C-alpha cells in the first residue's frame, strides 16, 4: 500500500501559533493536528502505512506550532508510535526534522 502524504502548505503557507485561541489568522498547530494530521495518522496506523509529512512550501515555522503538532501527537499516541509511523521531508529547512524528532521524544504522554 502507498504511503500517505500530507503537505503542510496545503493546510496553510503561513502556519503560525500553537493553539486556536491565539489568533484568528494564526493557522494553529492544534488545528492542523486535530483536523489533518491525526485522521491521517489513524489511517496510517490501522493500515500499517507510513505517513510522510512534507514541510516544504511554507514561509516558515514557529517552534510552538511544530511542538504542538508533533509533540501533541506523541502525547496522545506515544512517541514510539509516532516516530515509527511518520516520516518527514524538509529540503528547504533541513534542521527542522531533527528538531521535530526531539519534540516527539521529549513529549510527555498524558
Amino acid at each position, binding site marked *: 500500500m502507498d504511503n500517505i502524504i500530507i503537505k503542510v*502548505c496545503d493546510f*496553510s*503557507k*503561513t*502556519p*503560525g*501559533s*500553537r493553539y486556536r*485561541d*491565539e*489568533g*484568528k*489568522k*494564526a*493557522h494553529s498547530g492544534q488545528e492542523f493536528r486535530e483536523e489533518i494530521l491525526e485522521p491521517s495518522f489513524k489511517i496510517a496506523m490501522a493500515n500499517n502505512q507510513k505517513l510522510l509529512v512534507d514541510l516544504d*512550501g*511554507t*514561509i*516558515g*515555522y*514557529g*517552534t*510552538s*506550532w511544530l*511542538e504542538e503538532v508533533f509533540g501533541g501527537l506523541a502525547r496522545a499516541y506515544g512517541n514510539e508510535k509516532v516516530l515509527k509511523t511518520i516520516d518527514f521531508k524538509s529540503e*528547504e*529547512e533541513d*534542521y527542522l526534522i531533527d*528538531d521535530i524528532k*526531539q*519534540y516527539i521524544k*521529549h513529549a510527555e504522554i498524558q
Partner: protein
Amino acid sequence: MKKIYTTSSYKIRNNKRAKRFLKRRLVSKQKRKNKNHKGQGKSKEVRQEERLISNLTKITAPKHFSFVEKPEETIKFINKLEKLYLNRTSVFVNLKDITFLDYSAVTILVSVMFSFKTRNIQFNGNFPKNGDLARLLINSDFFKYLNKPIGKKIEYALGKENQIFTRANKEVNSELGYIVMAEASTTIWGEKRTCKGLQRTLLELMQNTNNHADINKKGEKHWWLSVNHDRSNKKVSFIFIDYGVGIFESLKHKPNDNKWFGWLEKIKNRLVYGDNSEIFKLLLEGQMHLTVTGQHFRGKGLPGIREVLSRNQICNLRIISNNVFSDVANEKYIKLNEEFSGTFVTWELNENNKNIKWIT
C-alpha cells in the same frame, strides 16, 4: 415711558444687574489684558502651543532619541510616560529640540500615543525643528493620529507601506509574515523571496507576547511591529516591542508546575556575578534551557531567534528587556541602570541574508 421703568424696585434691580454685568466685563477685560500681555513678543505658533498644553503635563523627549543607541535615557522617558499613563494624566510630548531620531524612537512614540488614546487620555506633541526628523514622524502617521480618536481594537495598522509601516496586535498573526516578507524581499532583492528566518523570528516574538507579556492572562498586551525600508542600502529593519512584564519578570512568576519554576536555583552555580545580563547570555545561548529543563532548546523562543541569526537568516539582532541590553551579534550583554517593563527587539534583513525562491 412705561410705568415699570420708573418704579423704585425696578431701579434697584436694574442697578444691581448693571453692577453685576460691569464686574463681569471688567474681569473679562482683565483676563484678556493678561492673556495679551503674556503673549506679547511671542509668535502665533508659540501662543497656540501654550494654549494647547495649558492643561497637559509637558514631558520632553531625549535629544538623542534612540532606544538602541541611548537605551537608558529612552527607558527613563518611557517610564515617565508610563507613570502618567497609569495616573491617567494628559500629556504633551515636546519633540521640538530633538537632534536625532531613529525608527526605534518613532515606534515607541507611536505605540505610546496609541496606548494613551485607547484609554481616552489626551496625548499631544509638537514637531521637531529639524525637518528631516519631522518628516520621519509624519511618514509614520504619528501626527495623523494625534488628533484623531482611534478606539479600542485588537489590531492597528498605520504608516506608509514600503517606507515605515507599523502594526499592532494582541494575537499571533502568521499571515502578516507573508505580507511583510513580500515587501521586504522586494526592497532588498528586487523580487519576492522567501526568508524563513524572518517568519520564525516574527512568530516566536508574537507567541511570546501573547503567552507571557501578562502574568495573569494570555493575549492581554499589544505587540508593535515596525518595518522600515531602506532602498538605497538594500536593507529592511524591523522593530518589535511589547510593554509586558519583560523576560526576567515573566520568568520570576512561573507557577510550581512549570518547567521553568525554580530556574534561578538551578543555574545559580553557573553564574559569576548573578546579574540579569549574565543570565540573559545563558538564556540566549540555550545554556539556561539545558540546565533548567535538561533538554536542548530546539529553536524555541529567544534562543531560537539567536539561532536564526547564527544561520545568517537575519542580522544585527539587538534585544532590550527589563535591565539588560544585548547586542546579540557582537555577544555584548550590558546591564542597564534603568528598568524597562517590556521587551524590545530589533533586527535587519539585507542582501547577504539567506533566502530561497518565493513560494507560490
